[in-house]
């Protein structure tokens, strides 16, 4: 295997585009840099040694060495969610690839743009049960937007270009590129492919004008309109257009867990989260609206509850870039395939051209009703007790970070409390695994966020169960000086599991108690970080302040919270949204 040493970082992209002969590994690193990639999150191994050598001989890409491949995928994912740019992962064949699967599936479920490079055994050994061989293309097929096996080095640059194009356009998602080791050693001419065209892949981004007209007419005739928006708004960077539409219609706006920050939480028109743990006012409004405008949301079962009872009085307009999302779970009246920005802007234009004015009388009554629901104050909690209330801790984090932090989270009760109480005014600030619900997501995702936004406050609101699923990344954080604030709402339980067991299994707490927990303060210190613990309500504010004051250190704040606190409201499985359990 002959290596060609190529001078690293020999200039700008213009010069790069001259035809040069490079090894596959060099083509890969050159391509990534030419594509504008900043960070590669990865972990080396036999099949990617040539690639790691090429990485060593260049300085345009920064490589972040994680401690587990799952964390590489979540870190790239956090980077992508917080910037809108694709995250990039590099792992070796076999166990490297299988460790990455959870993160690929996580990104897939939430439509996050990501390119995952997996090493593969040499082409002549594929199918031989070779050392560290796994059928990566086969395993990732159902959990990636697309995947490729590169068998010829001459195809490498074009395949990579396609991978980035597919990952970032249409409904975004992870794309896997499997590269056999011999392909990374072979030599080919390299020219950065600027253009890409695929006859089989042309996502529709502009909405059908006729459908937009129909939708606008329906909005104008609405008496109890409502906007239900989701992750598509965030993915399309369309919160400005959405907010304008909300204001023009002067209707209530609810967001899915994935859509938080798409419409400012502090806006009077915002009625909070909807769905299983949605607010009373949001779920009641959904159940009573007469026109629902669903934008970049996919009618997930956590959102709809019993589908028969979902929005029974509403005519539904649905804007989504993926035709398969439309009328999948709930039949809609006006489907519009297209990007949120394009479609909502076209709607605004049409509404203005029609001289649209909201109907003060009917809207007045609608808002009166909504205010009555809102007056129930379904998110209230008491701070009188002896235990720290997790909701209070999240409220304090909001106040102390001035509502301006990037907040990642894991999965469980703490995730829902973070979603309900942090109050996101901006998009891309709330980073969580909604679709797959992956425990262990929070800390590595925070690494990607912090790298992308070195000056920003990044908090990881987690639970004592979840944080242990990728705790090893504390080491990565030290290596790369990532001053993440881990806020662990430690209830000593797999709280979300315990809550279901309390409600639906007669309090038989089968294996939901977190026994033998480590001393998180000492653990943080062992990894070279700061650890703080509080268990009294009186101390929690001070502790959170102290945590966020330590600007350049990672702090693990272990907050011992009320162990039996539950997430309210809650729509039990099979019930309609207006059949919530309230506190």
């Amino acid at each position, binding site marked *: 295997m002959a290596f060609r040493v190529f001078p690293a970082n020999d200039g700008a992209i213009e010069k790069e585009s001259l035809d040069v002969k490079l090894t596959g590994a060099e083509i890969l690193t050159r391509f990534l840099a030419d594509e504008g990639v900043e960070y590669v999150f990865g972990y080396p191994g036999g099949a990617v040694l040539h690639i790691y050598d090429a990485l060593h001989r260049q300085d345009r890409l920064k490589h972040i060495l994680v401690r587990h491949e799952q964390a590489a995928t979540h870190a790239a994912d956090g980077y992508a969610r917080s910037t809108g740019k694709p995250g990039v992962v590099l792992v070796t064949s076999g166990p490297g690839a299988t460790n990455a699967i959870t993160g690929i599936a996580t990104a897939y479920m939430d439509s996050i743009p990501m390119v995952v490079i997996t090493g593969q055994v040499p082409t002549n050994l594929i199918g031989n049960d070779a050392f560290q061989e796994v059928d990566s293309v086969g395993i990732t*097929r159902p959990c990636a937007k*697309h995947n490729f096996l590169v068998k010829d080095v001459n195809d490498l640059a074009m395949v990579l270009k396609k991978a980035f194009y*597919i990952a970032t356009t249409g409904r975004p998602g992870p794309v896997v590129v499997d590269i056999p080791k011999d392909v990374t050693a072979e030599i080919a001419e390299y020219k950065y492919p600027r253009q890409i065209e695929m*006859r*089989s*892949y042309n996502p529709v981004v502009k909405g059908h004008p006729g459908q937009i007209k129909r939708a606008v007419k329906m909005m104008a005739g609405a008496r109890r309109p409502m906007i239900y928006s989701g992750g598509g708004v965030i993915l399309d960077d369309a919160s400005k257009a959405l907010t304008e539409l909300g204001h023009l219609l002067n209707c209530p706006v609810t967001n899915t867990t994935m859509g938080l920050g798409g419409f400012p939480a502090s806006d009077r028109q915002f009625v909070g989260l909807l769905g299983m743990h949605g607010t009373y006012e949001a779920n009641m409004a959904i159940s009573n609206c007469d026109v629902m405008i669903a934008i970049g949301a996919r009618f997930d079962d956590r959102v709809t509850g019993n589908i028969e009872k979902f929005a029974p009085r509403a005519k539904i307009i649905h804007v989504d870039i*993926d*035709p*398969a999302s439309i009328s999948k779970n709930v039949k809609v009246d006006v489907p519009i395939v297209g990007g949120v920005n394009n479609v909502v802007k076209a709607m605004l234009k049409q509404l203005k051209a029609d001289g649209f004015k909201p109907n003060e009388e009917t809207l007045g009554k609608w808002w009166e009703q909504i205010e009555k629901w809102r007056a129930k104050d379904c998110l209230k909690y008491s701070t009188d007790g002896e235990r720290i209330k997790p909701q209070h801790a999240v409220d304090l984090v909001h106040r102390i970070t001035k509502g301006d932090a990037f907040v990642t989270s894991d999965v469980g009760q703490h995730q829902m409390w973070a979603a309900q109480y942090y109050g996101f005014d901006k998009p891309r600030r709330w980073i969580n695994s909604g679709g797959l619900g992956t425990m262990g997501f929070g800390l590595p995702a925070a690494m990607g966020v912090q790298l992308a936004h070195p000056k920003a406050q990044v908090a990881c609101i987690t639970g004592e169960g979840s944080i242990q699923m990728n705790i090893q990344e504390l080491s990565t954080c030290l290596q790369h000086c990532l001053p993440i604030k881990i806020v662990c709402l430690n209830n000593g339980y797999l709280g979300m599991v315990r809550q279901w067991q309390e409600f639906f299994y007669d309090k038989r707490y089968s294996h939901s108690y977190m026994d033998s927990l480590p001393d998180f303060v000492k653990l943080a210190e062992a990894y070279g970080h700061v650890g703080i613990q509080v268990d009294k309500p009186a101390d929690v504010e001070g502790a959170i302040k102290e945590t966020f004051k330590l600007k350049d250190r990672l702090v693990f704040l272990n907050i011992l919270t009320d162990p039996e606190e539950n997430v309210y409201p809650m729509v039990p499985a099979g019930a309609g949204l207006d059949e919530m359990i309230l506190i």
Partner: protein
Amino acid sequence: MRHIISILMENEAGALSRVAGLFSARGYNIESLTVAPTEDITLSRMTLVTRGSDEIIEQITKQLNKLIDVVKLVDLAEGPHIEREMMLIKVKTPGAGAREEVTRLVEIFRGNIIDVTPTTYTIELTGHADKLDAFIVALDKAPILETVRSGVSAISRGTKSLHI
């Protein structure tokens, strides 16, 4: 209802498994599936027979369209179309009576006897899937040794065509 979905897709390794994987992952059923390259070897044509309610068929076609390798597809059952299936079937023909009987049936069904041994006939038969079914039923007396069916191929009637 029964639907015949005709798909034009990139002739790439793994394209077939993407379609098969989609059907198993989403719990759709496949009655038959055939695939081969077209006159343009970069494209494959797949014919897929499935059943489901209108909603399910709508999801199936949307999900198929979403596959990156799929260039175009059409549900042929939505319009006039022609469908054909080919069958190779080997039957035992122990005596002259059996031979005569089978030969007569093959004639009625417009098939061909394409191989003969002292104790067997091999028959080729093409037509609508229903006709092949009927032939099998009609064979009743001659014991079948082997049946090989190609799965349905179909094309729209008239001047309309599925091409890029």
